[in-house]
Structure formats: C-alpha cells, structure tokens
C-alpha cells in the first residue's frame, strides 16, 4: 500500500488563467488538489459520488466532478473554478443574477451550480426553462427549492446576451 500511496507525479496546468506546475500525489482528487494544495476552497465536496454536483469545475470547458477526477489528470489542461468567475475583480453575470434572484441560501452547492450554468450558457446562450432544468438536473440544492436558480440562470443569460449585443 505504501509504495502506491506515496507515488507522485508532475502536473502542469492552467488554473483560472494561471499556469501552475506541481508534484501531486497520484491518489488525490482534483477537489483535494484545488482546496488543499492551491487554497481554492470555493469548490465544495459533498456526496463524493458524482451525484450532487457541488464540486463541479470546468476542465477544458467541460464540467467534471472534482471529487472523483484525479488531480494528475489535469496535466496539460485548463481548469476553471468559482474563484475564476470574478478573477477580473467584477462579478460574472451569473454571480450577479444568483444574488439578485435569491438563488442560494447556505451557498454550499452554489459554486457547482455556477460552473455548471457557465458551461450551459457557453453552449447555449439562450436556453429555455426546460433546457436549464435538464442541464442542471445533476446538481442538488437542499435550501432553495430550485425555482430561484432557474430564474437566475435565465436572468444571467439575458444579461449576457444584452452585453454581447452591446446594449
């Protein structure tokens, strides 16, 4: 066991726009790497079985569950976390819309919802309500009853379309 648990591997990746190069234990997950090694504690871990979506981050633009994605597998890839959403100092329209629509309460699931919603809006800038519900069905929120989250995502999509069209 010890030989395996001690194994480490070099990883080079871009995390929230910053290139990092680290030696990581092969057994640790991306969530552990982000939280413990990089101090990016915005990404939360809950079910640890890929069903709650709390730990969702984007790897090369695609949402993954950081709780079960090995840290070593980000080598050569680009990772985006909730901290990257407002990296420029101003909040992302999704963050603004989540606050304005009361789309969170305890906030523990929120980073995962935000990243999942970002992935949705990148693929589909003008989703219908049903499309939002379908895309976010893999994220659990225990506080809000979901309706405000749907409203926030639609609101953010509208804000982003307005920004894109220069209105």
């Amino acid at each position, binding site marked *: 066991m010890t030989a395996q*648990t001690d194994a480490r591997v070099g990883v080079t990746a871009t995390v929230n726009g910053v290139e990092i190069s680290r030696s990581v234990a092969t057994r640790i997950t991306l969530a552990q790497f982000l939280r413990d090694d990089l101090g990016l504690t*915005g990404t939360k871990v809950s*079910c640890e079985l890929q069903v709650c979506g709390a730990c969702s981050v984007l790897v090369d633009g695609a949402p993954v569950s950081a709780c079960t994605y090995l840290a070593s597998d980000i080598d050569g890839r680009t990772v985006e976390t909730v901290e990257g959403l407002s990296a420029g100092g101003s909040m992302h329209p999704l963050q603004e819309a989540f606050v304005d629509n009361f789309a969170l309460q305890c*906030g523990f699931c929120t980073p995962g919802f935000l990243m999942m919603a970002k992935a949705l809006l990148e693929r589909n800038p003008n989703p219908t309500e049903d499309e939002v*519900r379908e895309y976010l069905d893999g994220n659990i929120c225990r*506080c*809000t*009853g979901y*309706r405000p989250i749907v409203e926030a995502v639609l609101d953010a999509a509208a804000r982003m379309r307005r920004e894109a069209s220069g209105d």
Partner: protein
Amino acid sequence: MTDRHVVGQAVRRRDLLEKVTGKAVYTVDVVPSGTLHAKVVRSTHAHAHIVNIETSAALASPGVVAVVTAKDLHGLFPRFGHIVPDHCILAIDKVRYYGEPVALVVAEGVAAADDGAQLVDIEYDELPAVMTAEDALAENAPLVHEEAYRASSDESFAAMAATPDDERGGTVERDNVAHEVTLEWGDVDAAFAGAHTVVEGEVHYPMLYAYAMEPYNAIAHFHDGTLHVVSTAQHPYMVRTDLARIFGLPLARVRVEVPYVGGGYGSKSYTKVEPLAAVGSWVTGRPVKLVLDVEESIYTTRADAADVKVRSAFDENGRILAREFDIVLDSGAYADNSPLVIAKAVNRCFGPYRVPNLRVRGRSVYTNTSPASSYRGFGAPQGSFAGELNLDQAADRLGLDPVELRLRNLVDVGEEVLRGKRGIDADLKADLRMVSESLRRDAHVGESYGVGVGCSASDAGAFPVSTAAVRLQTDGSVVLSSGSTEMGQGSRSALAQIAAEELGVELADVYVSQSDTGSGPYERTTGASRTTTLVGLAVQRACADARAKIAEMAAEVFGGSAVDYEPAPGGVRGPDGPVVGFGEVIMRWFGANAGEVTGIGLVRRDGATQKMPPFWEIGMVGVEVCVDRETGAVDVEQLVTVADVGFAINPRAVEGQDLGAATQGLGGALFEELVYDGPQLLNPNIVEYRVPRMGDLPAKIDTMIAERRDGVGPYGAKGAGEGALNPMAPAVASAVGRAIGRWPTRLPLTPERVWRLVNDLPPVS
C-alpha cells in the same frame, strides 16, 4: 421612525455576495497550520460487546500520531447529550449501532488517517439487537441502554429527562423507552361512544436524512487551558455546555465558533462531532480536524421514523368531538433531541383544530440504529401525516369537501390550541382560503389528478433566552453581535435590517458578527424558527439601550437632560433642533476621536414572550398531483404555500425559506427514505437516498405571504422556515389517494408503492 425604510424590503443579502465568489468560509475550509486529521473507526455490528481493540498496527502506520479509544478518556466525562448525557464519545464496553465511533485515528494528513483507520482491529462479541421500534418494545427485548442517565441541567430539558430514580441514583426497571409524553383533556371515551362517525387509521412516517450538503465537521484545539472549537453546530452555546462537562472546564474556557454553515435544517442542532475532534486534540495537544463523509453523517444523525395510530370522532356536521393518537418514534441508539421531538409530535399531531376531547400518547424508543434527532419541523411532520390524512379520510366518509371540513374545525384567532398556552396568533381560515383559491384557479380536470391540502400549527420559537449587542462606532457604523448561527436562512441580513431600521442608519453601515462564544453574546439555540422573532427582539432592545446611553451622553456633553434628546435617524435630535450623529456624541463624550457605545438587548420569559410558545408557526399548503396509473409515477402539478409570518422582514428571503421547506416536504412525501436491511442501511448515500432535483420542480409554484402583524416579534413578525414542510406529506398523500381512489398509509410515495396501491397489491415495507 414609523416610516420604515429598511425592513419589509427584499434587500440583497450580503452573505450571498461572499458565497457566489467562493470566498465565504465554512468550517470545512478552516485548517490552521499544524493541524492533524482524524478518521473515525466505526462499529461493524448493531449491538455487540467490545472484547478487544488492537491499535498497534495503526500506530505503526506512517503518519499516525495517536489512536484514541474510550480507555484513553480517563478523567473525562466520556459522554454528551443536552437532554440526557447517554451518548458515548467513543463506545464504552459495547456498541449500540452499526457505524458507532469506536476509535479515532489521528494522523498527519487525511490520507494517513484513512490508512491508519483501516488497520485498527476490533474484536466483538455480538449481542441480540433491536432493529425496529416494534422489536424494542417487545417483552424481554434486549436493552439498548442498561443504565439510567441523570438529566442535563438546562431548565426546560430537566423536566423532560429526570425521573425520581435517576435523582436518587438508584436502579429502575429498564425498558427501551427513551422518553414518554402524554397529553389528555376531556372525556375521550364518552365522546367516541356518542360519535356520529369514527375514522381511524395507522400510518408509517419514514426514516429521513436532512442531507445538509456540508457534512458534519469540526476542528478542535487545546491550548493554554482553553478549548477552541470551530464547527458546523447550529447551537454553539449548547455545544459549549457539553464540551465543558466532558473536560471539566469552566464555560468561559471553551470557545465554540461557527462560520457559515452549509445547510442545517435542524440536523446540526446540538453536539455531534465536536467531542471527537476535541478528545483528539486533548490526547495530541495539536489542532485536530474531523470531517465526516455523507455515509458517516447519516450514521451520526437522521430523523425519527414514526408509527402513528389515529382515531377521530365527528358529529353529523363534521365537527371534531375527539381525537386520539398513539405515536411511536424509532429514535435510534442515543436520545439526542428525540425526547423533544416526541414532545413536539404529541403537541402537533392533532392540528390547529377545536378538539374538545383529546388523548395522545407518545413514546421515543431506543433501537440499535443510527441516532435520530431534530430535522426541520421535528415532530410536526410525523404527527401531521397521521392527523391530516385522517381528516381527509373523514371528509370522504362524511361527504364533505376537505377544505370545508377543516374550516368547520380550525380554531379562530386567539383561541387556544394547547390548553393553557398562547392562543393562536394567526388567521388560519383566511390562510386556508388563500391556498384553496389558488388551487382551484389552476385545477385540472381528469381522473389522473388529485388535490390535497394540509394545515398545521407548531408551538415554535423554543425557550426564549436570547441576547444581542450593538456597538455604535465613531463613524456612525454599527457592529451587531449575536450568538445565532447563519446557516443559509438569512439571519445575518435580516438582523442587520432590524438594526438599521431601529438606529436609522444605512443597511451597508451595519456589520453582523455571529456565533462565537468567546467574543459574542449568548443565544440558546438557532432552531424552531426563533431567530427573527426572539433575536430580532433582542436586537431591537439592544438598539434602544444604545440609544438611551447616547441620550445620556449627549445630555452630559451638550447640556440638558437625556429626555431632551429624541431619537433621530443615525443619532439624536437635541433641544435646538439639529440631529447630532451617534459618532459625534461618542467622540465628544470620550473627548477623543475614539470610543464606542454598546447597547445590550435581553429576551427572557417576560412581557411579550412570557406566554409559551413565543409564537405559533403555521403550515398551510396545497398540492395538485397527476398520477400515471400505468407506472405509479407522481407529478406535482401545483404547489401552493402560505407563509403566515406576521411581517416579512425580507419577503424574498421568506419565500425562499418556504419553498425550501416545501421542497424538503415533497422529498419526504415522494422520494426519501433510509432503509435498514439487517444491522446496516441499504442506502446510506445520495445515489440511493434520493432527494428532490431540479427536474422534480412542480409545474406551478405559488408561494404567498400573509402579513397581519400578529406576531410578538419586531414589527409583528413571527418565525418562518419550517411551516411549509410540516403538513406537506399528508397533502401529497391525500392528493394521490384522491387520484387513485385508495389511501396511502406509508411514505414515500414511490412509483412502485403507488402502482401497488393502484392495483390493490400488498404493500412492500
């Protein structure tokens, strides 16, 4: 000051800004340098003697610093529990449930602790177990606890736990009943004998898990004779009491801090993992962090399952003559808060109706299963499922509309529900009409559809002991301190609104600091929907106290007497007219560009909060469902709720609480159930314990707020947050029953269960 400018507004919650950026700090994010990590070694039996614990291999594992077992706790009080201290920190001599902590491996890093935990070898001698309440109540059933425990000192709990034998330290004839509560008035037998219609039934309410998404976790550090704990506790002051007793420390030397909490819903009430982290630090002298996973959290605390028998007598006009309930809770291996859960189930099962003759017996029963405790609405959902479903069956038998039956029996404003307690502070009939009208407006036609409503009233607020402090600063800003925990419900924002309103300052100028027993004021609990009402009152009083001090100081500085200085926004108005800001008064009085004034607000059983309960929390809901008779699948077409909150400090936040509670109620009605198979759970995870998802959203959601300024809280406010959950299960069960023509008796109403009902097949347990 009557022109309200901040309260009643759907202001942006500042905690949400921290949370959407990922900057908000939760306990799970707190890891000081030098922290050791702990892993719990858990029982693999439901009931067994511990013969031997072999720790040498674990101690030899790389990075392991210590392996703590009950034997290492010499000199400590090795148990906890706020009502009865029956709960072993680490199992002593025997284990009482699968998953019970037996040893704690403390190591340099999470992985080393995990590896070490796998090397602890425990030898057991298995004992016969009682896995259900029925088994536990059987004659000559094996005992989960052989000894009686002395009650904790908290006044409102002491009466609940103590027996004369406990006090004498003698032995009593033991059984597995952890706590029994009865409630009776009138002549029940005579009323049943003379009734026009008697309707009876028996239901089972499932074993649930709150699934707060941040699992139980804590970090503890002993240093300089002081224990410092950061944890996910809803009630840091209650946890402090348990920890002080364990280590024989003065209360002042135990500091419990609670940062943002990733969901509570009652499941983080009272002490959970804090003693484990604390004994880890006590043994090693270093900070010790313990984070449970979801499976471990389920085995730490789940909600009480219930078997309820109900019988109601009616006259020919559908008026209730008598009701009788027998409630048995499966409370698991340790009492935790279940004695209070059963007391509340007894108070809440018969509903906010005029019941001239009543008899209720409630028993909380020890079993060799995961310990049960509070979960949102505690006691009310279990009791209400039986009581409300029984009324729907009665309406059917009496040929009455179920709304009409309720309107004939609901109490009026001011009328007592519980004898000798506060009369009902709500207009229940108006609330029910709001629900009924909304349902009717969008009702579907067709035999697949069914409608159900549910009413409940909870004696909420808990025991009124609240304090708050406001500290006025020289620049006019305000620090508000409270021991109440922010777990998502929005208290940080609502309390700031109240302070801003009272002091006439901008909301942005109020900073709120919460839940730190080392530096902030006392708060008994954060539960029973009490914060807006009781802490809100404490904040109002703290603001008034600060204003009184400012007036005294202004008189001293500017002349005249305190009464000459009237309250004005952000300051006082002197005899000469102009408003002098708080900051200027403070600086002039201290004679420096420095200083502050602290106002203190205290709330106890006195005045407006003398009569119990401090307020009634109303649950008023309606649903319309569509049942697919081929598959048994249930879709919720309409969800209608009324939050009868007196006055909504932040209406959007109130709606959010109500929809959240309603959704958790739908989860218990349709999806959620922990299932034991032998000694362990079949589904201790979020794959097989299914909670509501976005795709389950009802097609129509109508969350209404009734504001009649009829509460004792600030501006007429009452609590919110549990109401919509409490009567949700019976509303759904009634709706499904009407759609398919057969009454459900068990939850959740999974497709299989509904399909069996449709086809008149025997139920699966």
